[in-house]
């Protein structure tokens, strides 16, 4: 990592200029407007708005469902990535190609389709209704929608790392007689951890803010299935910009924190890998 050598490569001005200009126009200035508008409230009012009981419970609903969904995604994403990298079986390419489907499918379509599947008249919902479990219009329904939204993030984060993973340690451990479970826990998992965190973190962030698919499946009952983005929408409908932007600001802050954590892990990790190489 020689610092002086870097300057040889041209294009700093151009690329940096374009990057910062576009970032400012598309992301930073608009986001800053949130802070400007919510500042029309004083500190005290700001806290009053964001600590209203209904708002707090929507934070809770959003958080808990996003958390459970990301946990499910972490486990399922790991399994899927593992299966896609380590095993050969018919239909693997098809399976691999499907992972990004939730990216490409409009969230509203996903929401409508999932709702009609999981309501107690639907294909899946009927099955669970026998056991008295309701999916659509409950928190479980929200979680399902969020699992759908978040799954590609985890798989696509873990997959490349798993592909590059050097098999030699594994073999060594195998030769030394370690059980597969132990090998996975002690050798493979630590290597995957940062990627898994990154993917799950991104999925979590995305799930917190998801709106399109959730409104269809949630039922939107206050204190029970009302998510924060919906609260923002209803504040807007009441022409209460200050409250809407305040709540949005809190969400923005949380997503910034998540991303910062994710990127810190990523940076830490890439440093470690590079350190090993040189």
């Amino acid at each position, binding site marked *: 990592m020689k610092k002086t050598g870097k300057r040889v490569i041209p*294009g700093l001005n151009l690329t940096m200029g*374009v990057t910062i200009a576009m970032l400012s126009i598309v992301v930073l200035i608009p986001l800053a407007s949130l802070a400007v508008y919510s500042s029309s409230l004083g500190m005290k009012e700001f806290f009053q708005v964001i600590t209203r009981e209904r708002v707090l419970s929507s934070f809770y609903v959003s958080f808990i469902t996003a958390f459970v969904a990301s946990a499910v995604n972490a486990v*399922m994403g790991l399994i899927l990535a593992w299966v896609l990298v380590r095993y050969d079986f018919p239909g693997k390419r098809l399976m691999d190609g499907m992972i*990004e489907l939730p990216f490409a499918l409009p969230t509203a379509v996903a929401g409508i389709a999932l709702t009609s599947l999981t309501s107690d008249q639907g294909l899946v919902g009927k099955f669970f209704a026998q056991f008295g479990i309701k999916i659509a219009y409950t928190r479980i329904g929200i979680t399902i929608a969020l699992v759908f939204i978040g799954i590609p993030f985890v798989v696509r984060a873990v997959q490349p790392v798993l592909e590059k993973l050097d098999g030699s340690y594994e073999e060594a451990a195998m030769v030394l007689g370690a059980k597969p479970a132990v090998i996975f826990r002690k050798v493979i998992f630590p290597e995957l951890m940062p990627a898994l965190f990154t993917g799950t973190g*991104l999925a979590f962030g995305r799930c917190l803010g998801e709106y399109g698919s959730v409104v269809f499946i949630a039922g939107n009952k206050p204190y029970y299935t009302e998510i924060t983005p919906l609260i923002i929408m209803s504040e807007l409908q009441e022409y209460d910009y200050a409250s809407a932007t305040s709540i949005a600001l809190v969400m923005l802050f949380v997503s*910034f924190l998540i991303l910062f954590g994710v990127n810190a892990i990523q940076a830490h990790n890439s440093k470690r890998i590079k350190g090993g190489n040189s």
Partner: protein
Amino acid sequence: MEAEKKEQSQLVKWLLIGISVLFLVIMLVLPLFVVVTEALRKGWEFYVSAITDEYTIKALILTIEATVAAVICNTIFGLCAAWALTRFHFRGKKILTTLIDIPVTVSPIIAGLIYILVFGKQSFLYPYLQQAGIKIVFAVPGIILATIFVTFPFVSRELIPVLESIGTDEEEAAALMGAKGLTIFRKITFPHIKWAFLYGIVLCTARAMGEFGAVSVLSGHLRGVTNTLPLHVEILFNEFQYVPAFAVSSILVILAVILLVIRSIVEYRGKKET
């Protein structure tokens, strides 16, 4: 002992594959299945007439316009950002990376809201925009902006790891020998990142096509003017026209599947080459 182990790992293998398949079928295939069967519920002719409806076609054209514009913008941005972030050292790099990623985790509702705040009626910019005859919110430019926002980091995120892993040695050598920036990029860097680049573009396209939340806040839902396909689906749905709604959804599904097939080919080629 050895055989037993093998048997066991076979068992684990099929168990894991089974779980994966089950998960994917329930989470991804069934919703698709619902879309397709509902779309065809009233027969093929009805389906064709639904997707050749005047407004559907207008919405499709708008969706393609917005997607193309967003992809072009984000591709330029992605290349520049990836180059700046991996080829140079400067303070605040970590923050810059985080800022670029922010659109992924920002709620689409907030994404729409912020543009309303900046370009909408209560903004101080509004009178100037009015005077210049520029309409941004509730018009096509707003839709394009929202689409750019939600797919903002998609290309750069694909490029950065690849650029980081190939290192800068070749480029430095070329630069020392006096090659121009563009030549270096074209001859040395681009061949390395070709596949990641294409992959990023495909992902960006896929996501841009399907964006609903942010666009919905900014579009104003003017029929035939600012309605994208996902919004048109919502409108049809709200008109109790379930079958046409699913028929239009199926267009999006088909487009998504085509893109994913392209993606698979890109990835496969990319892997074969390296």
